């Protein structure tokens, strides 16, 4: 019997029966390790740990009430937004320029350069954080270089409340560049060379060509990159944990780390879950925005 796409469309139920054995294992596993834990994790928010009795008791929406009166939570929320927006914006900006350069026909050894670009991607987050913690040490490489350049007041990167979050952001940008670059590069490679050639002949500048022609043509790739990278960065834990532990004085505290601190440092799983639900709501709205944009 010959099955073609048009015939399949007329027999959706038959198709479903055939698809089931293929999808069932993944569905079962996803329910067991994703859907159920999600519901279970969310349900924790209605309970609070009582140190006196050593038990978790039902406390309704108390965790949320406490959350919005908690100045550190507000701080962590703002930090998380700064951390995500600046990281992703900078990653995108740097990677875009790098990708257009790596895509240039005039660049020698393109293949080798592209492979080397991937290096930070392979490193474990903890290792990346360790390296940057060393680079930012008061007597570390960065300050040695700065003093070599004649800077007198050397910044204490990891200890200064105004700088701590930014040191984390720099490390995060470094780690994210390969993925973003390679995705943009793939988008660029899917473009017809003729369009760019024609634009160049018409005397369009680099900026004009990119903004008017390239960016609109690879909009779809850009959207998925921005969506995924925003979600991953917002959820990221390793870098802040290893570099600053959210310090000094919560100056670089982000939501995932704050949630962890409550759930596993102070046994208040319910409070951690409340923070987690706020993260979930923020990120799901990002996903919804993406889906709306794509479906248009």
């Amino acid at each position, binding site marked *: 019997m*010959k099955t073609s796409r048009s015939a*399949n469309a007329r027999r*959706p139920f038959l*198709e*479903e029966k*055939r698809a*089931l*054995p*293929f*999808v069932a*294992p993944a*569905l079962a*596993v*996803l329910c067991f*390790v*994703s859907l159920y*834990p999600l519901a*279970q*994790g969310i349900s*924790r928010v209605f309970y609070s740990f009582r140190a006196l009795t050593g038990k978790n008791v039902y406390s309704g929406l108390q965790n949320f009430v406490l959350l919005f009166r908690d100045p550190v939570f507000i701080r962590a929320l703002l930090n998380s937004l700064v951390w995500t927006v600046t990281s992703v914006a900078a990653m995108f900006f740097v990677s875009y320029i*790098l990708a257009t*350069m*790596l895509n240039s026909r*005039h660049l020698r050894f393109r293949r080798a*350069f592209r*492979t*080397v*670009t991937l*290096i930070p*991607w*392979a*490193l*474990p*987050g*903890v*290792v990346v954080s*360790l390296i940057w*913690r*060393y680079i930012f*040490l008061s*007597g*570390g490489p960065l300050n*040695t*270089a700065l003093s070599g350049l004649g800077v007198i007041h050397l910044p204490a990167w990891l200890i200064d409340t105004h700088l701590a979050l930014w040191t984390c952001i720099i490390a995060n940008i470094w780690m994210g560049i*390969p993925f973003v670059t*390679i*995705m943009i590069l*793939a*988008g660029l490679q899917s473009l017809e060379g003729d369009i760019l050639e024609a634009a160049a002949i018409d005397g369009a500048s680099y900026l004009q060509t990119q903004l008017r022609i390239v960016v609109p043509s690879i909009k779809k790739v850009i959207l998925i990159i921005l969506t995924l990278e925003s979600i991953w960065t917002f*959820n990221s834990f390793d870098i802040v944990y*290893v570099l600053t532990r959210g310090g000094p004085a919560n100056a670089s505290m982000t939501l995932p780390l704050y*949630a962890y601190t409550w*759930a596993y440092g102070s046994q208040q799983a319910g409070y*951690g879950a409340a923070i*987690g639900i706020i*993260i*979930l709501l923020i*990120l799901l709205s990002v*996903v919804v925005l*993406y889906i709306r944009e794509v479906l248009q």
Partner: protein
Amino acid sequence: MRMHPFKQVLLHVAVLVMIAFLVFPLLLLVFNSLKTQTQIFESPMGIPHGVTWDNFRTVITGGTFLINLRNSAIVAFSTVILAIIVTAPAGYALSRFKFRGRTAFSMWLLATQAFPGIIMVLGLFTVLKVYGLINTLPGLVIMHTSFALPFSIWLLKGYFDKIPIDLEEAARIDGCTRLRALVSIILPLSVPGLLAVATFSLLLSWNEFFFALVIMRTNETWTLPVYLARFLGSGGVVQWGPLSAAALLVTIPVFVLFLLGQRYLVSGLTGGAIK
């Protein structure tokens, strides 16, 4: 079109500067692993003079490094195998069949990316506790697999989309069953896709820190990222030499496998996104 020679030189310089920015931190790590503590702080950026292997010796002979290495290897390897077994059929179904809830399934896969680690870890903790899997390697494998699934399915769908459906139809006209066509025609063609999933889930599992930190409670069950974080936070002056050596040893295996698999991973990622 030709490029002005000056511009072309500028292009190369710019690329080299970027590459230096991406490579230099790793180079620092290599240097530090070969220096003594005094050397590290006398010249934080300098090339080591008089290479010492003491740091590596300290790491391998002292502490739990080798046990943690074994843990990491077992967990990563099991995650890769499990991820492939579960995702290959699902990716195939998403690419080839129309079924109710197909779009919803794809959206769900994307949404899972947005699930906060803390919620998942609280929920999975409860599940694992029921089966006595806290502080065990299988428990962590389950966590990592759940983490790797959505993206891997999406990756594989992209790969199966690229394999022409005519190939399968031709085989079936020749009398193959669907399963037979799948095993003998589609599977061999999708090896690059499976390698992409393998590379992705290996990277994910080997490098994963948060879940391992929460559920691995004793020195003997740590994976390498937890080992490194504990090493750093073990109090007193940070021993950058041994720490760098350990970090380098953690990085090398995944780095080598990544270099071998990156071709497939890159083409898988970019194929899926552009469609």
